[in-house]
């Protein structure tokens, strides 16, 4: 198929693909005003999420810390696959990053967040291709969603970061990231 044929098909398809309904600005504005008067906020969950994630980060830190080995005996770490250890560490660091984000008050921190997210993103992508992720739909799905959120954090820009952070926090909430991390981390720690 040449470019011209493809353009024709796209043009034909665009006529029917998700054709937006008519937009009545005045009516939408009226609804918007009502909503602003009600002062709808979604921030109620933040303290709960923060407390839950602190507990999780602590638990993950314990779970991923190499145990003392008996002299001459194998270490716990040696019994676990490298991707599993890497995943546990990634989840622990991610939850700390994601829960620090809403609390951050100075914009100077954005570059640090973006840099850390970039590092975690690389690990996440490595793990997405690992056999562990291929064999565990829950882990794969979690890593998929984590990848998207970390990519957003890695793109944080100075100056507009407060709004961006709010959007990222919404994504974390909508995707239930923290509870899902807790579930998957518990399975990893249990060796499932």
């Amino acid at each position, binding site marked *: *198929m*040449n470019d011209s*044929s*493809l353009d*024709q*098909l*796209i043009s*034909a*398809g*665009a006529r*029917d*693909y*998700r054709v*937006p*309904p008519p*937009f009545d*600005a*005045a*009516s*939408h*504005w*009226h*609804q*918007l*005003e009502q*909503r*602003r008067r009600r002062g*709808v906020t979604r921030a109620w969950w933040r303290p709960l999420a923060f407390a839950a994630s602190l507990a999780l980060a602590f638990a993950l830190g314990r779970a991923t810390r190499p145990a003392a080995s008996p002299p001459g005996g194998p270490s716990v770490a040696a019994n676990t696959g490298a991707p599993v250890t890497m995943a546990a560490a990634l989840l622990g660091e991610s939850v700390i990053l994601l829960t620090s984000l809403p609390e951050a008050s100075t914009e100077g921190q954005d570059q640090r967040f973006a840099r850390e997210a970039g590092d975690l993103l690389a690990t996440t992508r490595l793990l997405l291709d690992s056999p562990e992720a291929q064999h565990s*739909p829950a882990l*794969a*799905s979690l890593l*998929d*969603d984590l990848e*998207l959120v970390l990519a*957003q954090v890695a*793109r944080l*820009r100075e*100056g*507009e*970061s*407060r*709004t*961006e952070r*709010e*959007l990222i926090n*919404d*994504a974390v909430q*909508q*995707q239930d990231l923290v509870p899902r991390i807790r579930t998957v981390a518990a399975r990893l720690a249990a060796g499932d």
Partner: protein
Amino acid sequence: MTQAAIAHFHVPDPPADDLVDRARRGDREAEYALYRLHAPRIHRLVYRLCGDAALTDDLLQDTFVRAFSRLGDFRGDAAFGTWVHRIAVNLTLNARRSADRRERRIAPLRTDLAAPESTAFDPDFPGAFAEAVDALSPGQREVFVMHALEGYTHVEIADILGISEGTSKGRLFHARARLRELLARFAPETSHE
């Protein structure tokens, strides 16, 4: 503000910078003017990206509630339109991406489509086109919808999505390649015997 009051608003033409300054000072008329200026295009884009009218309305409201409450954060480094688009697109992608990925994992893309025998006027075409667009990767679909269906330039897309212009062009190239493959049976030349 009542709808009657809204109807009496005088909606000034751009410059938008002046509107933003006034909106920042709490001028509702300026806010409404900004809304009139940007909401229709954002509404179209959000609907094209999510395909759900009720969700589109919610996301549009969410976008402007945030934008107006965060005007103090807006420093004018980018155009107000770009900034508010960025909020809308991020909200939309947050709302849709997980669902899209899960759906794709549950229902893998059909690659066993029927043998070529029809054209774009085939009654199956709209459904097949939608299926093909939905089968693009999230990044490719966003760029394709914005550029090919809604007419955004690569510069605008790059600003809104926070990617480089080259990445935007690359995603469009790959999206077209994938669509070429998925819609091959509808190509005019394949209908020849």
